């Protein structure tokens, strides 16, 4: 990975990261800030160079990893400029949360509402052609748990491919809803009835039917964050398998 060389060659081996806000509720950034109590130990290897909440930086500097929350609003010139700048100035982009990864709750928006009635169309950054190849990872959730973000940042620093690989695959995923769990797990006879998908769902769109030991999905309140399938133990089992100590 690129920062392997950076660590070996650069004078300042710190990984420069930035946090960028598109059309969203800022919940992902708050979750990101939530983890900082635990992340103190990795701050000597990471440098936060841009964040609309934490830094006073007006201009976007060149940076290694850009964490982007929110969907791209096609009618907002600021967003379009930001996307252009990020494509030039960042080495990799990580889409954080349902809105930037899969569209999220923005998929349900039809615009024409105050205070910005002109804001009508929203696209997740994983679908923007200009950023193809740059958006390397997508983190599901609405918002993603701070422990997930912490583990992700740690894996990024440790170059832990086992941990990162599923998020790389998710960046290529177009849809994310409770239907994924139904289609990929329940319909294929792989559901064991553990209830992890239901626990992961932020809107309770997935409830659990004890009588049939299967999840039940209510599409009208699903925000397309992708947490359910990502958390399902039958979707992928990545954890290492050592022996007892």
């Amino acid at each position, binding site marked *: 990975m690129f920062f392997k060389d950076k660590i070996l060659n650069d004078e300042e081996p710190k990984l420069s990261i930035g946090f960028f806000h598109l059309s969203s509720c800022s919940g992902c950034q708050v979750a990101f800030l939530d983890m900082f109590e635990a992340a103190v130990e990795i701050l000597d290897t990471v440098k936060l160079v841009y964040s609309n909440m934490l830094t006073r930086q007006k201009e976007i500097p060149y940076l290694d990893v850009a964490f982007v929350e929110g969907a791209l609003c096609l009618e907002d010139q600021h967003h379009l400029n930001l996307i252009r700048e990020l494509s030039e100035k960042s080495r990799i982009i990580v889409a954080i949360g349902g809105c930037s990864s899969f569209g999220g709750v923005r998929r349900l928006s039809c615009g024409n509402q105050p205070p910005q009635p002109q804001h009508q169309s929203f696209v997740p950054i994983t679908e923007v052609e200009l950023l193809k190849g740059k958006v390397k990872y997508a983190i*599901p959730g609405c918002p993603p748990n701070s422990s997930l973000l912490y583990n992700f940042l740690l894996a990024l620093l440790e170059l832990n491919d086992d941990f990162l690989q*599923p998020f790389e695959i998710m960046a290529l995923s177009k849809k994310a809803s409770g239907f994924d769990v139904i289609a990929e797990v329940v319909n294929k006879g792989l559901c064991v009835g553990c209830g992890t998908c239901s*626990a992961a769902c932020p809107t309770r769109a997935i409830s659990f039917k004890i009588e049939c030991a299967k999840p039940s999905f209510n599409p009208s309140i699903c925000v397309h964050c992708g947490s359910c399938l*990502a*958390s399902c133990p039958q979707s992928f*089992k*990545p954890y290492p*398998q050592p022996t*007892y100590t």
Partner: protein
Amino acid sequence: MLSLNEKFLIGSYKKVFFVRSQRGNPVETLFKLMLENGLIDGVLTCSEKKGKATPSLFLKANQVKVNPLNSYFGINTLLKRALQKYRLNKLAVFAPPCVFDGLNKTQYFGIGSNWTKTAVALKVGLLCTGALTENSRQLEVIHLTGEKEKVKRYFYDRANLVYQLESNREIIVPVNVHHKYILTACRYCLNMGAKGTDITYVPKKEPNEGLFIVRSERGWYTIAQVQKIAPADLKLRVSEKEETEELVSLLRDKSLLNINDILERVELGLPTPKWSDNKLRKFYRAWNSIEGNFEEEVF
């Protein structure tokens, strides 16, 4: 080549103990003693409420009750309640191995419930030859006896799965019949021995008896602590070799049926339970699924 030996079927363990409790079910006694002495602050499991298996979170020792039937569904739905509402940080979980798969994944990634990694103090697995819903169990009993009767509890006796019915009649459930009625996903499971937990519990004929397969250092420490606190409440003796062999024989029969079903799925081009290469929509081939099934880490 695959060998259905004890290591594969039951997994690594330190010791197998035959346990007799003075206060009812051995697992309940274990949790009660641990809750009373502050070793844990909550128990997440499934219990029977109004004749239905219900996921339950117990915070007090006198409330602890585990389900006498193998229907431990939806336990992980209570994770957020345990960790984020009640802020428990020494949680014990009692469940079959598949529930621990979900829990392990939540612990490893952090998807689903925050900070689960540091909040689980003990994992007690249930040896499982397949879980059933209430309807399936009723039909299974009709299949075996020709009559409709409720099952009171189940246990393992001499390489057999046995149901104790409401009338106290005991019926042996042949593995091939049981295989037809269990959840579809249970037909592809190769971790029936609950590998990856601290202790595996095997229910025996008497309701206050069972086997504890102690696997991890944490499980060993737990048993030592409980013995120190109340040696009379939970009496342990090292299990006879035959008891383990009988168990291995039962699991071998069931594994053969499961492997047959996994191979059938592969032949049909359907996904097998362990999905390949961490990729969401590609799957392990059957042999990978079988050979790599040594999930023995306790998070």
